[in-house]
């Protein structure tokens, strides 16, 4: 127990680091995933190919390899940024591929008749998209996006191994100070549980509010 009380600031720092990583990478992943999903359903062939390639490659890349390439590779091109920014980039790009697939399958669940009806009412493309297709897609997309973001929070642990301040990395500091290693890990586990359960609670609320009644 005193492992936590003695090192509350270390744990707090790590916890906040993980939360920060998760939030920033989620925003990046959601934006990039949305762009890629719109690429993948575009009527222009080459854009569609680009979206498909992005998703296929990133979904099949081990995240450690991506971290390795981004954190240690990009500086070779003279791009020097703080490690945390690199970590957000790697995590965000990786997760965007999964977000893209979730969004795309959400858009595909909207029946074709909905779009046809909207167009026959004289709605423009923007209206069809914003008033008819996206609201319906949004409802079916909540659960898969939620589980993707939980996976993102868990994956952020890899950043700790590349010397970014986050929760898992605290074990190193504490074991050097000679604290009981098992209890150190117990509190790390509790930290991760708090984050994943919080995300899952948030998406449960969203689902109850907007989800499809089944």
């Amino acid at each position: 127990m005193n492992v936590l009380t003695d090192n509350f600031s270390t744990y707090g720092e790590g916890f906040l680091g993980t939360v920060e990583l998760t939030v920033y990478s989620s925003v990046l992943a959601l934006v990039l995933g949305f762009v890629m999903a719109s690429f993948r359903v575009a009527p222009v062939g080459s854009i569609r190919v680009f979206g498909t390639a992005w998703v296929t490659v990133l979904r099949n890349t081990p995240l450690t390899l991506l971290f390795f390439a981004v954190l240690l590779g990009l500086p070779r091109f003279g791009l020097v940024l703080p490690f945390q920014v690199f970590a957000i980039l790697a995590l965000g790009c990786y997760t965007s591929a999964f977000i893209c697939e979730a969004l795309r399958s959400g858009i595909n669940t909207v029946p074709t008749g909905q779009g046809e009806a909207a167009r026959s009412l004289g709605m423009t493309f923007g209206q069809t998209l914003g008033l008819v297709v996206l609201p319906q897609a949004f409802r079916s997309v909540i659960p898969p996006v939620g589980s993707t973001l939980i996976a993102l929070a868990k994956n952020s642990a890899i950043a700790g191994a590349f010397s970014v301040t986050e929760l898992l990395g605290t074990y190193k500091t504490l074991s050097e100070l000679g604290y009981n290693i098992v209890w150190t890990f117990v509190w790390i586990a509790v930290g991760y549980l708090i984050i994943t359960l919080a995300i899952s609670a948030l998406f449960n609320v969203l689902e109850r509010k907007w989800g499809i009644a089944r």
Partner: protein
Amino acid sequence: MTEASALYDIPGPRTRQRHFAYGVLSTVVILGLLGWILHLLFDTGQFTYTKWMPFEYKGIQELLLRGLGNTLKAFAIAGALSLALGGLLAAGRLSDHRPVRWLATVLVEFFRAMPVLVMIFFVFVALKVQPLPALVAGLTLYNGSVLAEVFRSGIGSVERGQREAAFALGMRKSQVMAHVLVPQAVRAMLPAIISQLVVALKDTSLGYLITYEEFLHAGKLIASNLDYDLPFIPVVLVISPIYIGMCMLLSWFAGWVSRREQRSPKTEAVDVAAAAPGTLLPGGDPPTAPGP
């Protein structure tokens, strides 16, 4: 686009022209982007002979192959053990005894909520074992719990009548499971199982972080060699296609299995013969036979 989407109408001639123009424009932009990356690679001297020289040496090639072998070894052991653990936990969750069910549920939920890396580090640091067992243990606990959920939902998706009929025939609980439910469930869940194995294959690269001598670790050794002018980018260019290729192959296999499963034997068995020439059919043209 082959499948109809709610988003776009079927394009007319002017729209098609516009799309063609967009297509040309975006191709130019994408090619420009690729060219810029290639230029950057050349500009920073990534294609010099010194940087690519190490790949000609037999020792280095063997190092890479040994790393690849270790990756595949970890994947094979972790895959087999996760399937076994998944089966065990799924059996626990489907058990008739409440304490067993409760215990299995807690285990599955806990290990699914934990990052794999935390488990791997815990086994590696706290229990002080070798890197390979630590990696395998972490991967097995995580993927086993996920697979347990896959198995459970697979068993649950078999029609209830099947189970009832089997019990009515006087089969025992284990017989119902082994002869009726599992064979039908495996068919439905095979794609999901293979997709989870792709995750396990990808996560073997976490072994790099606990100094297990796998593929990425071998790459890192070569990349940090000063004699070859730190060939970091060449190493990434060599190992990432191999990694991504392996995972894509397995993903493709999952997709292939899932497409195969979706083929319904009922509709395939009916082979419609083409109408003989001259046959008058109501409603226009004679139907063509479905493709093979």
